[in-house]
């Protein structure tokens, strides 16, 4: 096949090329938006740095600066984070997904989309885009981290994620040509990733740019980079990094406490648990509890529920402002708990069916939204 010169569906002048400093900030910002889960972005950052050293460019593009009919493919890593720390990625899994998808649909992909801005999956698609010479759209499908694939706004608002392609480090490419539901797709992909050794990259059926623009959580990359940069800048200026994070995201610092109890176990393949906090500073005398299912899901103060998924519950180190993931939790740790309103796209009845408290096994809880950024400004 002779490759024809690709007709660009965007203006190259609109691309923002990321720097090494942007990547450092993105690592922190993605960690914050990971709400305790999403895996560690460090390895992804190293892959991106190696790609940059090899001359590839990481470019982001606003969702309204690409032609509405452009084909956009979302991609992310799938697997067990602990396995990922040992069995490093080969590095081109995502690129092979991209090529396999183009072969499958017999059309070139115009841009890459991020499924999940929280955690490791913020950087994985950037590497795919860079190696494939494509831009990545400045948005994502979650605005945070969620444990399962059907929890993207793309799936929630009607996009069928199959046909999809799943590539491992060996070069195996598995195509799921059709799943009767998004949950089925997730179930089959989980079975497949076990056979692939616990880690793979998965690209879902391409979407048209107008759909991504309408249903993607907007400006995820600029936001994550700004968040990380705010922490870095505040630390440099010896100011409070936690306040800087709140200011940017319309969040509130709702608790300061030490972890006094931590229970962890496995349920249905997920790391679930419960954490108790004893307050200090302005929270002295209060207790708090946080329920965990890969991410932080529910926040209670003195036994009463105050924040629930899909709003973001973020734990930051009291001193450094760096995000704390569920794997890092330990007895005695001093944390600041932040509540950050999720995007309105995650708050519709349709979305709450998939990512609300009930979907995570809390049928007794009703999502009561934090004041959104827009209403705070009003």
């Amino acid at each position, binding site marked *: 096949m002779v490759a024809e010169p690709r007709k660009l569906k965007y203006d190259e002048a609109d691309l923002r090329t990321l720097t090494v400093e942007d990547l450092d900030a993105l690592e922190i910002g993605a960690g914050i938006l990971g709400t305790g889960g999403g895996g560690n972005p460090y390895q992804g950052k190293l892959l991106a740095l190696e790609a940059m050293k090899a001359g590839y460019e990481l470019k982001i593009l606003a969702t309204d600066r690409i032609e509405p009919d452009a084909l956009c493919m979302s991609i992310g890593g799938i697997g067990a984070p602990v*396995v990922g720390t040992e*069995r490093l990625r080969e590095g081109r899994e995502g690129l092979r997904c991209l090529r396999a998808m183009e072969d499958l649909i017999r059309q070139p992909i115009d841009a890459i989309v991020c499924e999940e801005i929280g955690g490791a999956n913020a950087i994985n698609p950037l590497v795919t885009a860079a190696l494939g010479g494509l831009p990545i759209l400045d948005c994502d499908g979650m605005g945070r981290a969620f444990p399962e694939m059907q929890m993207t706004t793309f799936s929630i608002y009607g996009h069928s994620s199959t046909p999809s392609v799943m590539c491992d480090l060996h070069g195996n490419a598995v195509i799921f040509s059709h799943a009767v539901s998004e949950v089925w797709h997730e179930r089959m992909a989980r079975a497949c*990733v076990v056979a692939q050794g616990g880690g793979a990259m998965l690209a879902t059926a391409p979407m048209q740019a107008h759909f991504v623009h309408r249903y993607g959580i907007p400006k995820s990359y600029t936001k994550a980079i700004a968040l990380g940069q705010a922490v870095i800048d505040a630390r440099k200026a010896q100011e409070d990094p936690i306040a800087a994070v709140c200011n940017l995201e319309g969040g509130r610092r709702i608790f300061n406490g030490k972890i006094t109890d931590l229970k962890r176990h496995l349920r249905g393949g997920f790391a679930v648990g419960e954490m108790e906090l004893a307050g200090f500073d302005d929270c002295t005398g209060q207790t708090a509890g946080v329920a965990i299912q890969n991410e932080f899901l529910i926040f209670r103060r003195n036994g009463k529920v105050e924040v629930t998924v899909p709003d973001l519950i973020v734990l930051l180190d009291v001193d450094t402002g760096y995000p704390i993931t569920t794997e890092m939790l330990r007895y005695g740790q001093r944390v600041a708990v932040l509540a950050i309103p999720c995007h309105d796209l995650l708050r519709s009845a349709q979305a709450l069916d998939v990512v609300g408290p009930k979907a995570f096994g809390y049928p007794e809880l009703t999502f009561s939204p934090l004041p959104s950024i827009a209403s705070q400004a009003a």
Partner: protein
Amino acid sequence: MKRIGIDVGGTNTDAVLIDGDTILSSIKVPTTQDVMSGVKAALAHVSGSIAVSGRPLDAVMIGTTHFTNAVVERARLERVAAIRIALPSGSSLPPMCDWPEDLRTAVDPLIFMVHGGHEYDGSPIVPMIPDEIREAAMKIRDAGITSIAISATFSPLTTECEVTAAEIVRSIIPEARITLSHTLGRIGLLERENVALLNAALQSLGKTTVQAFSDALREASIAAPFFLTQNDGTVALADVAAANPVHSFASGPTNSMRGAAFLTGLTDAMVVDVGGTTSDIGCLVGGFPREANNIVHVGGVRTLFRMPDLLPVALGGGTIIDPETGKIGPRSVGYRILSEALVFGGNTLTTSDVAVAAGLIEMGDKDRVKGLDPAFVKASLERIRDMVTDSFDQMKTSAEDVPLIAVGGGAFLIPEKVLGASEVLRVENAGVANALGAAMAQVSGEVDQVFSGISRDEALATAEAEAQAAAVASGASRESLKTLEVEDIPIAYLPGGARRVRVRVIGDIELS
């Protein structure tokens, strides 16, 4: 049992001679630039008391900062080769890809990535190709490199690839000194590989250091076996320890915490060890330092292995105070305190000078700090108190007040009352707590593996048996072994009840 404990710190070299729980002799001398003359002076002092109780000396335990300093200073490191058995995994992230450039230059590595390694369930990722190892070994030999670090995917679970590769390398380079990553680190390939590479770069220094100690002991007419202290507060026979210098990285602070436990009789407390340049705050749990379970940076390199959970604070007896602004540290006069501090006739204002001016301690010539403004002295001490309080609070594990034990040559800097501390303890001989901790040390064994397809109980039992075997191999007597820590974490997204299990056992030295 009669033992000598020696601790070589950045500022002081301490030594003690103990018989059972009784201290027969102790000395503190400044660490000399050549290190060994200080050691010899300390040895000469305490060995004079060996004959007193008649019985011969059973063992000498030495803790040293030699190896950490070499990494931090990027000096005295040797050229290494890295062989990683993992392809196709990790091909985009070669060994040392995240090392600081100056350290990488200092070890000037020859890097090989070859096929092989295992999955979490013990099955091969792809078969290892012996010819690839042979080819790498021949290139390493031709480059004249003899220190080699070998790492393989999931080697803490399945050691086969690393062990086989080592045999092949040795068949081509008989004099090779080989570090296998699974013997040092935990799950997390990049971090474990980093530990193995640091270890490889320190092989020559390990050997020359142990030889120098051995010579110093012979000069002092001491024939007892000698041990080097390890990061977890235990010891290993010097010849074994020389092969694993990374296990001595944090021996100083660990020894001081163990010494503090011994001196106070407390097994659960916080310990602040104030040295010349920095202080370390750690937590004693059951008489041992709480172990860090996360990434620890050594000289800018990410590592994940047996290290104590410590919070370093830039506060020591030699920490420089800016006479204009009153700013404390982070710079220090270090081992030059005896010539540069005001009270010792120098021209640099240090925390020690302020302490002497305030009457906290007597040393040097206190007339030389008479002229310090009392308000300045008071403000400096308050700043020191704030530094201590903040760091102490960060390391505490509960809101309850806990005892704080102050040890080390600069312990006089720790205030009588610290917010959140039930009491601040100072103990007799606190200045030589490190050497005491070294002298009291035991031997340990650790296992950190992923188990799958077996029950939790079976996994825990297997891990415990392996940890016990490791301790015995390092010189512990089997009868004395007890299990210190058991930790297991289920691994998300994997079937078969996969879990990471970590078990640590400890026992007394097996006397020959």
